[in-house]
């Protein structure tokens, strides 16, 4: 069933590639790493045979636009890729006219970590997605899991799965989790209500595992500065030495840079080698921006961003 879907998808995209005279198509191809796919820039319609779409297509593809500014580019977008592109348009990093977007109603991505915990050594070809289930072929026979249970944490609270304002809206994949019921602030709220000490201990615990590899920054579709504040040396704000000060400085300032921009695609948390629950950090910023300025990132490319903007009657409870 999902092979048919992929074949139809390839044909649709190939047709659009030729018809629109695109220079490139950004989508996913299979990877040799288990339970991963490879974000790929396809440069000719023939290469599309290799295209794949499944529950492991987590990495946000908007990130590949920032490195390929010229030409007319097609992108296969899920809800979060589309929203990240809106942010890039707001920031004049890409122009809408150069893009041909094929939107895919997102089925919700799967947590590689959870699957590997449950089935150590699992390979991609042992996983079969269909309807609301994921079936894993194990040596002791198949095991069927609910897709909802295996979702990536960030996808559990996503309410923007269907990409808007696209040139081509594709049919939904034959596998999908039910629409999310949780809100992104469901996890952040309770932490905010914990006693300060416990909160501090929680983040000290989680963040002290950080090895400052900057993978979360590198994968983020919205981090594109030529010189990141982590790397400037006049003045050097921080160093890559693994000290709590540097780690804290990095995260706080990166979070501030994401305020009103983060589209909660989950790529950063997904890539973190230390399994740091970064959604708890970016979710906080997103919740505050929503509460204070009634703004959600990536929904409308024509709006100004909340932190480069102001209103006369902004909250001033913090001014002593």
């Amino acid at each position, binding site marked *: 069933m999902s092979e048919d879907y992929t074949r139809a998808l390839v044909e649709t995209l190939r047709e659009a590639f030729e018809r629109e005279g695109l220079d490139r198509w950004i989508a996913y191809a299979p990877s040799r790493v288990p339970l991963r796919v490879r974000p790929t820039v396809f440069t000719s319609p023939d290469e599309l045979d290799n295209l794949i779409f499944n529950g492991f297509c987590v990495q946000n593809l908007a990130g590949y636009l920032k490195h390929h500014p010229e030409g007319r580019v097609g992108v296969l977008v899920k809800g979060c890729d589309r929203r990240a592109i809106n942010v890039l348009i707001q920031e004049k990093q890409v122009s809408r006219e150069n893009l041909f977007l094929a939107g895919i109603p997102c089925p919700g991505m799967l947590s590689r970590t959870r699957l590997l915990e449950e089935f150590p050594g699992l390979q991609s070809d042992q996983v079969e997605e269909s309807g609301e289930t994921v079936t894993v072929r194990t040596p002791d026979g198949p095991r069927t899991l609910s897709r909802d249970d295996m979702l990536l944490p960030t996808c559990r609270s996503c309410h923007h799965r269907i990409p808007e304002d696209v040139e081509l809206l594709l049919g939904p994949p034959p596998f999908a989790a039910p629409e999310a019921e949780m809100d992104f602030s469901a996890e952040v709220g309770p932490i905010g209500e914990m006693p300060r000490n416990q909160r501090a201990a929680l983040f000290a615990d989680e963040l002290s595992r950080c090895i400052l590899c900057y993978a979360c920054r590198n994968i983020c579709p919205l981090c594109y500065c030529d010189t990141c*504040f982590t790397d400037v040396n006049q003045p050097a704000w921080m160093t890559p030495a693994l000290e709590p000060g540097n780690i*804290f400085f990095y995260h706080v300032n990166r979070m*501030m840079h994401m305020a009103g921009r983060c589209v909660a695609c989950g790529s950063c948390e997904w890539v973190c080698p230390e399994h740091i629950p970064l959604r708890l950090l970016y979710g906080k910023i997103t919740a*505050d921006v929503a509460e*204070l*300025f009634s703004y959600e990132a990536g929904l409308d490319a024509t709006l100004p961003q909340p932190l480069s903007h*102001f209103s006369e009657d902004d909250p001033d409870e913090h001014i002593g």
Partner: protein
Amino acid sequence: MERTPQVAKEAWEPRIVAFLCRWCSYAGADLAGVSRLSYPPTTRVILVPCSSRISPYHITKALMAGADGVLVSGCHPGDCHYLTGNLVARRKFIVLKRLLAYLGIEEARVLFSWISASEGEEFAELIREITEKVRAVGPFRGFLREETRDTHV
């Protein structure tokens, strides 16, 4: 870069880095000085062009480098020399303040205020007030060091 306070609790005095905008708050501090108002010698003033010059970098860096508290002060809304600098700063600061509190930094360590050039007495009072606030939460022992906090108060 982390500071290990060597001083005994009794001898400890808060160290507060105060970023004051050139057009209002710095002049307010100056007025407090020429009016010979007394306030605790806990602040290290850094002159900046406008409150909007201050980014989260400066605030977190000051804490990282050993400050116990940070104050950012600028002109009242409507009075900014650059018209709207302080209004943009106001948005940035509320997000930062909430974020730091969420991560477990005591709220009293990061303070914002508006002080005009004629508010010498208000400036002196502000410093008295924030000195007590920071004193109440004690020395800052560095980020992500929960085990060492709260043992001193």
